[in-house]
């Protein structure tokens, strides 16, 4: 019967298992017993290097250096007092402090504990020389990330730190362990999987003196890939210098392909703090600083747009065919609605579209906004990329917000009034935009409706990353942009234009200023979004000063930026 056959198969399987037990435990028992008693097998981890990060000219922005850590294997300790006395002398550190670190980090007798990180090379040699006296002691080499330019461009680069518990669970399958370091924020995070090296290690058999008896096996660590950015470090230095002591953002982007040449968010931080154990104490200061230096304002900061938004309203006016270039509105210095006066900066008189952009006349846009309607403005703003992330290759990008009547009615607490449309038309109210969104929008206008994808990656290893270089048509008539550009140019070229100081010899500059009201008792935000064309370059740029007062301040910095770029032959 078949059950009988199955019984026989089961019996045979059990005999095999029993034979296996005999082999492993009785015959090879002594061998395994020796392994377990002498224990013996120790694992030495070899860290993989992270790839370097370079700027577009090949200058190294992020590098590695070797650091020496002192480790103790608990089960090898003979005399704990002697050991720490020696260590304390050799390292010139308080003995109690060393013992304290040791106790805190110890978790298993065989697992080496780090007692001192990143010691001098000379001290490392002294310890290695005395190793025969203290078999439990050894010095391990590891790699530390260094950022030679400290604060410059920290937000683009990011920093590295040990993998935290939450991330380990998520990334375990991708080869991360609790020993790994991982990129946090910036390119270090976004391109972590390319930068990261493969961890390796040695499995060695050691005797009771801690000496290696035999190398059982080895797995070579590997270096991660180098990454080349579109960033120009010389330009970064200029931008960072201009924003010294200010809170703000400078972005410069190539209109041809969306390559970000410079992105500086101020205040910045020193990423070395996270990888250098001596500087780590400053870390908590970073997290508690009221100016949030860790925040990359260029992509993660969203602010009211102010008058910069008028460019959007101008496009929507022409796109909806409610106005032509010849349509004019009369500015008497205010617009009256239901007994409330909505003000303007000056009495501008009769304005057409070009003049209104040049002078940033509120009244023109109150009229235009009412004519076009909030729905249409919202639609155009969205197709110009506002209210949604630009998908730049940096983490934590914010989408910003473009209010709409429908949302306000459906989800909001209140009705949408005509006054809301007025505020909306001049970039006040609930609208929030990030600097990178405006740079992208400016490029779209300059490119006559062809949207580029902002990005900071140029090469991975030696392979160009060209997936970002695709242009997308925003489906707004080309001629509209040509008209709007005239207005943006007039703001610079006209004597009465709001950004006339940017009229620099040898350069074509156009743009839009913006002074955005923020919370009641703080200074306004100052914007300048511009386009500069020289013989060699066609760039969009943004100068944003958080609570920087009037837009004159940001325009002034834009002037300095362009002059310095001209001087350094970056244009």
């Amino acid at each position, binding site marked *: 019967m078949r*059950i009988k056959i199955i019984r026989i198969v*089961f019996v045979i399987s059990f005999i095999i298992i029993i034979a296996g*037990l005999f082999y492993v435990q009785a015959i090879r028992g002594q061998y395994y017993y020796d392994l377990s008693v002498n224990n013996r097998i120790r694992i030495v981890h070899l860290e993989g290097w992270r790839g370097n990060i370079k700027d577009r000219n090949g200058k190294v922005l992020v590098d590695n250096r070797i650091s020496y850590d002192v480790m103790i294997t608990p089960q090898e300790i003979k005399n704990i007092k002697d050991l720490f006395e020696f260590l304390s002398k050799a390292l010139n550190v308080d003995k109690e402090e060393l013992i304290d670190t040791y106790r805190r980090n110890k978790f298993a007798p065989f697992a080496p504990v780090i007692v001192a990180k990143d010691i001098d090379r000379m001290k490392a040699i002294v310890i290695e020389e005395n190793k025969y006296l203290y078999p439990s002691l050894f010095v391990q080499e590891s790699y530390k990330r260094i950022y030679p330019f400290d604060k410059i461009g920290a937000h683009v680069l990011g920093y590295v730190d040990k993998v935290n518990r939450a991330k380990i669970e998520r990334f375990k399958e991708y080869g991360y362990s609790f020993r790994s370091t991982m990129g946090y924020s910036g390119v270090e995070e976004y391109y972590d999987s390319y930068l990261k090296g493969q961890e390796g290690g040695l499995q060695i058999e050691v005797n009771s003196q801690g000496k290696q008896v035999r190398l059982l096996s080895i797995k070579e660590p590997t270096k991660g890939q180098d990454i080349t950015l579109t960033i120009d470090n010389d330009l970064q230095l200029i931008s960072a210098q201009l924003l010294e002591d200010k809170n703000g953002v400078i972005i410069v982007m190539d209109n041809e392909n969306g390559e970000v040449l410079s992105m500086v968010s101020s205040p910045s931080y020193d990423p070395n703090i996270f990888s250098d154990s001596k500087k780590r104490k400053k870390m908590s200061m970073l997290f508690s600083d009221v100016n949030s230096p860790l925040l990359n304002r260029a992509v993660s900061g969203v602010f009211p747009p102010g008058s910069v938004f008028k460019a959007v309203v101008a496009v929507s006016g022409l796109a909806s065919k409610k106005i032509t270039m010849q349509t004019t509105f009369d500015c008497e210095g205010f617009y009256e609605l239901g007994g409330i006066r909505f003000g303007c900066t000056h009495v501008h008189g009769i304005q057409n579209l070009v003049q209104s952009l040049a002078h940033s006349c509120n009244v023109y846009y109150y009229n235009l906004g009412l004519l076009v309607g909030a729905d249409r403005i919202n639609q155009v703003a969205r197709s110009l990329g506002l209210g949604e992330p630009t998908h730049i290759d940096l983490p934590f990008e914010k989408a910003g917000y473009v209010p709409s009547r429908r949302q306000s009615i459906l989800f909001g607490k209140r009705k949408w009034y005509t006054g809301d449309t007025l505020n909306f038309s001049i970039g006040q109210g609930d609208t929030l935009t990030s600097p990178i969104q405006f740079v992208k929008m400016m490029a779209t206008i300059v490119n006559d409706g062809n949207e580029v994808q902002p990005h900071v990656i140029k090469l991975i290893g030696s392979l160009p990353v060209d997936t970002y270089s695709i242009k997308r048509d925003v489906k707004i008539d080309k001629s509209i942009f040509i008209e709007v550009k005239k207005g943006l140019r007039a703001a610079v070229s006209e004597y009465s234009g709001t950004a006339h100081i940017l009229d620099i010899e040898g350069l074509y500059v156009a743009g839009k200023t913006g002074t955005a009201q923020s919370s009641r008792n703080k200074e306004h935000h100052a914007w300048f979004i511009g386009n500069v064309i020289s013989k060699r370059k066609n760039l969009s740029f943004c100068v944003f000063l958080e609570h920087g007062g009037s837009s004159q301040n940001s325009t002034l910095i834009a002037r300095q930026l362009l002059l310095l770029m001209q001087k350094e032959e970056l244009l």
Partner: protein
Amino acid sequence: MRRDLEKRIWLYTIAIISIGLVALYSASFQNVRVPLTIFYDQLLCVGVGLVLMYFLGKTDYRKFYDIAYLFYALNVILLFAVLIGGRNALGARRWIEIAGISFQPSELTKLALILMLGRYFSNRRPSLSFGVFNKMQVVFRGLIIPFLLTAVSMFLIFKQPDLGTSLLMFGIFFIMLFVSGLEYSYIFGFLALCLSVVPFAWGILRSYQKDRLLVFLNPNIDPLGAGYTIIQSKIAMGSGRIFGKGWLGGTQNQLNFLPERHTDFIFSVIGEEWGIVGALVLVFFYFLLINCGLNIANQVKDKFGMYVAVGIVSILALQVVINIGMVMGLFPIVGLTLPFASYGRSSFLVFIIMMGFLLNLSKRRTIF
């Protein structure tokens, strides 16, 4: 004689559970990684389980005949639910939470599959095949349909991903198919066909599953990662030698060298602390229990009962052999528990329920 068989099932089950608890206590003794609470957790489970087993022994197993298909269908739905919304642990979705209790539906599937196949095969008449059409019909009804039914849960479990349990399902199916009396030429033709698919299946495995299989062939290719467990487990087993290092004396165990020692690798703890003597005693009890089950399968009068008994016995035998084989490095590490000994509520309770069925079968084996 009848009472005798029942008593023996009780005796062997309790003996195995006790040895498991002793080992589990040692595995979690004064340890941070594996806290002692899991021991008490398992103890509670044993208490509940034995009561459950007693009552199942009194319930007529033929009641389960009626709900076998429904039960299996519900199980498939649960497996779906796990894939969609299950709890993620150690890189796999295996747990699901219902009414605050989390369990692994894949464990329950073992039982559901046995009942489903039992009912299906017991309804099939062993028909002699004459003519091509008839032959096709025999193959279709006797092999393809039950295989497809099994394959649904195999696939869902594989997706979790849990290769071990998925292959175990195939093992159960194959043994029950074998017993169903289908002609040998079909059975082995089918097996040959399945084996020929294996090289192609390599491509759909997860990278860690490939790692484990490669490491099984040569543990030294990844001594720090996947190979670590096999090497350490072998050292633990081997270093126990004849009489072991004594209870709570296993250094591999106590010093945290053994990963997952409270679940899949509990047998290494037994091997290290009680030596080959302890290991053989446990293996012997398993064998006696399986032998009892086979005797019941032989004697039971109705076909459904016979299939259920065969199914239960084969799952027990497969898991014991594979688990012990894997801790000794004879098989790749596929994550199957050691019945009654490994920590884990779902696994433990499902095996207890199976023993309840065996009790019941032995009680009614002479009743027609």
